[in-house]
């Protein structure tokens, strides 16, 4: 069995989602899906986090919060938009209070579609994120050497 060894720590924030994607994100950490197999820990503290899982279409009140949390994460960092809402705004994109998609607020690296995004799909997203994280780390190392 191939292994994916890295230690990307997750930060999950609900940017006005319906909750469905959030519980699926949480479900990923529980026994059946257990993302800790890849060294993933759900930290909840942006200062320690590497991967930002954002769900929901971001409302006005959340916008500043999301930006702030994003800024508090040290480089290299990967943002994964989980769920259709976070990808495009989904069914809520016409609501008066929804910005529509996490990428309207912060740069998103991986989109995980689905309503609700399935745990398998989230795992795929995270694994892709890990790959991206590796690349970014290498780029950062090269940059700091230069």
């Amino acid at each position: 069995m191939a292994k994916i060894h890295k230690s990307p720590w997750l930060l999950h924030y609900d940017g006005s989602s319906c909750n469905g994607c959030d519980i699926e994100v949480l479900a990923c950490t529980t026994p059946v899906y257990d993302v800790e197999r890849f060294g993933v820990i759900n930290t909840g503290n942006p200062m320690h986090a590497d991967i930002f899982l954002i769900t929901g279409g971001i409302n006005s009140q959340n916008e500043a919060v999301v930006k702030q949390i994003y800024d508090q994460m040290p480089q290299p960092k990967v943002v994964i938009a989980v769920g259709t809402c976070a990808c495009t705004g989904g069914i809520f994109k016409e609501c008066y209070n929804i910005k529509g998609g996490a990428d309207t607020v912060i740069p998103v690296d991986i989109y995980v579609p689905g309503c609700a995004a399935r745990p398998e799909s989230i795992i795929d997203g995270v694994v892709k994120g890990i790959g991206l994280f590796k690349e970014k780390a290498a780029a950062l190392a090269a940059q700091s050497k230069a």
Partner: protein
Amino acid sequence: MTIQTRVLFAVLYVVLTPFVIGLLDGFDRKISARMQGRRGPSVLQPFFDLKKLFEKEFLTANKMQLFLIRSYLCFIVLSGIIFFAGFDLLLVIFSLSTAAMFLILASTATHSPFASQGTSRELVQIMACEPMELLVAVGFYLATSTFTVSDIVTKSPVANIRFLPGFFVGFVFILTIKFRKSPFDISTSHHAHQEVIKGVTSEMVGKEYAMVTIAEWYENAILLGIVGLFFVSSNILTVIGAVIAILVVWFLEILIDNTSARVKWQLMLKLAWGTTIVAAGMNLFLLEIIRG
């Protein structure tokens, strides 16, 4: 003990601790995961984590934090050297609490709500543990008439646990606090989320957090060393017994961690002090009577 052996032990401590304790930590995570019905990460995960943390960009809310954390690490290592080189046990404990002070200063330097709340709790934890730690030293003194670690080992014909069961119980109890295990994991959350997020370490980024982790490993080595001290005697073979004892205690801590909820600091303080007074106090009293 000759100066050479002292140096040897000190060097071994400094060099091996990160590997040994790191590995134990890895197994800890694996076992915890299995207890929860999960597969868990690889046992080398703690090392991957460390590597990653050192590679992260350095963000800081207050520059002072970094040097305080480095001082914390240095002091812990220094205390460990005093212990493993076989010097005075009481001084080890005093210098450990000095080290803790650096951690506390580091975390309050940022004026962050979670770090500060965590710091206050960390202080309570230190306060809850300190009497028992000092009493352990007292216990060894009662049993062997010396505070010196090397003498405790070489001068006791039988393992001191025979005289110090109460002290041992008390010490294992506060180990749960020291290892930041579940019922008492109140100032930093190693496991399951809590109100103060990461508490003391909330504001520590990348390498700062890595250093705190390493410092914790060094500290755990000392604590496990003290557990071992209960079981060794001048007979070299008792070392095996000590290692087994350490592993058993370590496993017990994992089990407790996985079978209890985090309590509040008031209850922790009461329980810790209560246990100290009852277990260690009784033992102390009896030993004093025996000594006359």
